[in-house]
């Protein structure tokens, strides 16, 4: 087994990277070389400039990425704003309806987003919010997973810390912001990664509520780009796909340990 380990791992790595590498290869070749399947030639700077130039002009690629950043950061901001106090209350405070709320959180964990898409679409349409930033953000501002993770985290914080802070005269809000939030940083980091990956890559919901290129998020932008006339300019298409995938991949490469730990923490 040990003799075959690295050859097998290298083969697997090559297969895993193949689509990405091939896309990169195609994005550096002129159209006639691609169609003529003459790709194992030298890449030309002209072709690279042409393909990537075409990709960013044929459709508002940077607009898609900007939308993606706006949508993801707004969702994350509201999610954290809501889940931290809720998780704390569920873990450490007694109040009427606590068990019901916890039941709701567990139910929310089990219901996948696509199930809610239909009624949410009806609500968005009725409110006249189609093709708007709120339509992309609002439905996801409360995260059951986030509340769940925060509650589990706060339950492990010893009561003594909270009692000491109260004796020191901190208000509940100060306690949360000044004492507990710094402790929760790893959990928040893990959640942020889960949330960013999920919402950056989300195609289903945007394809329901977005109708214009101005509002398109990156995956929906890919879909638009593909169906445009530039969709047959393969070099440009691949360049566009790579540009779309790049921000998250770059973040992953920078923080890869935290990404993987964060996603495992989802368990």
């Amino acid at each position: 087994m040990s003799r075959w380990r690295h050859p097998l791992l290298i083969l697997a790595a090559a297969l895993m990277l193949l689509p990405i590498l091939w896309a990169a290869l195609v994005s550096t070749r002129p159209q006639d070389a691609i169609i003529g399947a003459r790709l194992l030639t030298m890449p030309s700077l002209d072709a690279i400039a042409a393909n990537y130039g075409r990709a960013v002009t044929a459709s508002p690629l940077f607009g898609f990425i900007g939308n993606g950043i706006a949508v993801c950061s707004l969702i994350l901001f509201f999610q954290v704003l809501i889940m931290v106090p809720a998780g704390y209350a569920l873990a450490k405070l007694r109040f009427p309806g606590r068990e019901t709320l916890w039941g709701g959180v567990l139910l929310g964990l089990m219901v996948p987003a696509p199930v809610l898409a239909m009624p949410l679409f009806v609500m968005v349409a009725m409110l006249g919010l189609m093709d708007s930033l709120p339509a992309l953000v609002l439905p996801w501002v409360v995260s059951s997973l986030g509340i769940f993770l925060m509650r589990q985290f706060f339950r492990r914080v010893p009561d003594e810390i909270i009692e000491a802070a109260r004796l020191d005269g901190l208000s509940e809000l100060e306690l949360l912001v000044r004492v507990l939030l710094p402790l929760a940083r790893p959990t928040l980091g893990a959640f942020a990664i889960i949330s960013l990956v999920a919402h950056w890559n989300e195609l289903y919901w945007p394809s329901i509520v977005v109708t214009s290129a101005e509002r398109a998020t990156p995956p929906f932008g890919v879909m638009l780009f593909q169906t445009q006339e530039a969709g047959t300019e393969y070099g440009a298409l691949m360049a566009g796909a790579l540009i779309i995938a790049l921000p998250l991949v770059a973040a992953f490469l920078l923080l890869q340990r935290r990404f993987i730990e964060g996603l495992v923490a989802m368990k």
Partner: protein
Amino acid sequence: MSDLALAAPLSRPLPKGILLAGPAALLMLLLQIGPLVLVVCAAFTDWQLGGEAPNFVGLDNFRALIADHDFQASVLVTARYTLMVVPGALLLGLGLAMLLQGARRGRTVYQTIFFLPYIATLAAMSIAWQMLLHPSFGPVNQGLAALGLPVANWLRDENTALPVLALIGIWHETGFAMVFFLAALTSVPTELHDAARIDGLGGGWDRFWLVTAPHIAPIALFVLVVLTAHAVMVFDTVALLTQGGPGNATRVLLFVIYQEGFSFFRTNVAATATVFFLAITLTLGMLQLRLGRRGGAA
């Protein structure tokens, strides 16, 4: 504790818990529970978005859906897709994790590469796959032709379209499965391996069944459930690469719901299919929560 309760001001209008958890509760009611009730209710009416006031029709929608051949076909397609992706990603993920577990060098690099497909936007990567599989100048067909093997129009052929989507699904999910297996393998006590060697189980296979398999079984079950949930919800590759075709060969459940609900606006049909879909995902979700908790997260 009682001292503290006395020290805290008693006469607040609302318990602090309600103030802190209130926004979450309200939004959950509005954005999750409400819609859930709405979609279940819609499944028992003849409501069409933009149409007339809905009438209660009992189980008519469910009867119609179950009798509908297209729907039956889509359930079957989803099941076939799931049965290809889940075992594929599970076994490959386990295999890679085991290879990586024993590797001294390059572990981080390999792990990063294997996990990359799970992070890279699947919609964008679908386009890259389309290029690989292009019937005339994709490298797959070029390679097969060079070897004198038959080529295919992979995404336009009824026989190959779904397996190809499943292959992309496996490519996407393997790294995800691997990460969990790697964590589980790393947590197997080395003492147990040593004990097995002294007890006479030197060979890799014997030791795998005696030491490793029992230890990773709970994780494997968890990964199985999560992968199944992912596979049942496949949408991106279908929407980008086949649009459910050719014929109905890749018309998976979520794509049916998408078409019925958001292209044809047959709200009641989409709602009924959603309830059916909900039943599956809720079952998986409950299993996931159970297994995840047992795995030590909660």
